[in-house]
């Protein structure tokens, strides 16, 4: 036991003095979390107050319906800019990306709205508008148009029915909203809110960094083998399993430290830069279980890599490539729900996907131990398999 303590202390000293490793394990994921959370903030919170800008040019001044203007100025999720220039200039600004859309209400639009020859609204999109945003904006405008059109039709019907006819139901157009009650199962404090990018980015980049522990671990192990330190320790009667535990325990600690550090970044640092704060869910045991099994899987994988490679260069290249593949497949870089069905099926073979599923179960779905049991078991089995192969490989190499 004392031998193990000396091995752990030695690894800790070596790691603390390896600033490359510290940057890789702690600074890189923190920076990724910060950048990606802030960069993707708009995409994730399109419906929570962050607007896509557009110009609204009303050339039907005086005649335009008040409801129409009110509706077009308050498109949900979009923000209208004052049209302080003529249409060609506004179009040029949209082309330059100063706003995403230009919406022109043409002269005579309101008067001809319910006629046989309507004068259509003109919508122009910036060249790099995505199809999803384009269609969302188009649908929002259509919704406003439909409401105003319906109002005009109802007025016309009332006029035609004569004074003695019973009145039409007095349904205000805004009353339509009462016909739909909506909620998100992601709620906080009883209020319906939407998850921000930080909920995805913290666990994603945390897992990415945890698996990068293979680089410092392999480098130290390879150097020990090359410099004869491993042989010296063996000649001192220290067993291979003790040496393996001497790596497993301290690096497990480092991974758990990463978990704590990155959660703190999500909770405190991201909001400090103007992003949304990470919310941790309500099950500490589930979060702790995921942290431990993900650390175990990452360190066991690192031990396997450290034993398979023979040089530090091999360790760095292999870990870099393998981790990028696991991350790309596992939903770290692109959320898995946007992947095609076939790729989603393949992505389930990435340990990072299991880890991400588990953390998202806690952070998004408010899951407890029962919900994370599946991904936790997958990670545990993966880690155990890595350790078994490592042990077999060490035995084989010793015999050689």
């Amino acid at each position: 036991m004392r031998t193990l303590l000396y091995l752990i202390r030695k690894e800790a000293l070596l790691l603390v003095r390896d600033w490359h490793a510290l940057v890789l394990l702690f600074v890189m994921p923190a920076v990724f979390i910060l950048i990606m959370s802030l960069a993707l903030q708009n995409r994730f919170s399109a419906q929570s107050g962050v607007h896509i800008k557009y110009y609204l040019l009303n050339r039907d001044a005086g005649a335009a319906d008040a409801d129409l203007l009110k509706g077009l100025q308050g498109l949900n999720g979009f923000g209208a800019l004052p049209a302080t220039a003529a249409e060609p200039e506004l179009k040029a600004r949209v082309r330059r990306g100063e706003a995403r859309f230009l919406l022109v209400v043409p002269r005579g639009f309101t008067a001809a709205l319910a006629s046989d020859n309507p004068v259509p609204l003109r919508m122009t999109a910036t060249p790099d508008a995505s199809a999803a945003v384009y269609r969302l904006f188009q649908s929002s405008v259509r919704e406003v148009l439909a409401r105003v059109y319906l109002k005009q039709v109802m007025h016309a019907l009332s006029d035609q029915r004569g004074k003695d006819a019973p009145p039409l139901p007095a349904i205000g157009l805004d009353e339509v909203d009462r016909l739909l009650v909506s909620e998100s199962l992601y709620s906080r404090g009883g209020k319906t809110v939407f998850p921000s990018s930080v909920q995805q980015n913290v666990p994603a980049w945390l897992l990415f960094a945890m698996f990068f522990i293979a680089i410092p671990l392999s480098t130290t192990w390879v150097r020990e083998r090359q410099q004869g330190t491993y042989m010296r320790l063996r000649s001192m009667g220290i067993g291979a399993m003790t040496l393996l535990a001497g790596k497993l325990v301290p690096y497990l600690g480092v991974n758990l430290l990463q978990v704590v550090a990155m959660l703190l970044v999500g909770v405190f640092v991201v909001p400090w830069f103007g992003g949304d704060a990470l919310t941790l869910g309500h099950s500490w045991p589930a979060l702790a279980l995921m942290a431990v099994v993900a650390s175990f899987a990452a360190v066991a994988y690192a031990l396997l890599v450290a034993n398979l490679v023979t040089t530090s260069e091999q360790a760095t290249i292999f870990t870099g490539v393998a981790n990028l593949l696991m991350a790309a497949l596992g939903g770290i870089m692109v959320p898995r729900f946007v992947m095609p069905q076939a790729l989603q099926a393949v992505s389930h073979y990435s340990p990072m996907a299991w880890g991400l599923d588990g953390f998202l179960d806690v952070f998004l779905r408010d899951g407890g131990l029962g919900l994370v049991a599946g991904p936790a078991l997958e990670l545990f089995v993966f880690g155990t398999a890595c350790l078994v192969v490592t042990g077999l490989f060490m035995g084989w190499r010793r015999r050689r």
Partner: protein
Amino acid sequence: MIHVERLSYRYPGSTQEAIRELSLDIGAGRLFGLLGPNGSGKTTLVSLLMGLLAPRSGRIDIAGGKGAVRAALVPQEYAFYDRLSVMENLRFFAGVQGVRETGRIAEVMETAGLRSFEMIRAERLSGGLKRRLNLAIGLLGTPRLLFLDEPTVGIDPQSRRFILEAIRRINAAGTTVVYSSHYMEEVQTLCDEIGILDQGRLVARGNLQALLGSGRGGQLSIGLEREPPRSLAEALHEYEGLKVNGAELTLDHCSPGQLQRLFARLAEAGLDVSRVRYGHADLEELFLHLTGRQLRD
């Protein structure tokens, strides 16, 4: 202390045996030199003796067992941690071996001359100091049997002298030392007994002086200024085993009296002696004689 019998070892995938039918005895308290060119099997033999490799065949007996005699290895490489200081390295290696005596670290630092460098990180030490640290780590467990594998490779003469002196002191204190090297001068000045390895075989072993005077090296060789006349050459046959080969006379056995008479005879014939040699000049020549190759090949 060490008894090795018909030991053989072949690395997996290799067609040649790294150690071939090697038998060896090393007595307790000796300073045994294991000499051989690079690739001759020295490190393999040391690894086998330390139990780091399992022999394919043969036996190794270490009196009382390796654990009982506290054997230690000082490998050829700098087998410590660059990012730890001298003191941190010593504390770590003492700790993992279960060395509890606090004074032991101070003692080995004194022996290896590392007192003034204890707080310096190993990566900043000179080559000579690194070698001393490598040696110091090997001494932490107070070994009764110490294997040193090329402990002076790549260092300056001053550090080399220091290390050789330290090894002498360690041996004088009762530790059996097996000193593996390809530096024949070191082995010649340091060791009282040597074994010469070549291609995995022990081609010679024994007392250094005896080896230098053994085999063809036991001949007396006399070089003359010119060839002796035929009559004299024939007359010299009275000396048993004397051969005349041009201007060189060789003699297998010769008493001091015979030698005196021979020189008198040559002087009478007016033949000047240009050189006289008995035995091998050094280990280099002995190795050349035994293997037909240079030690540094």
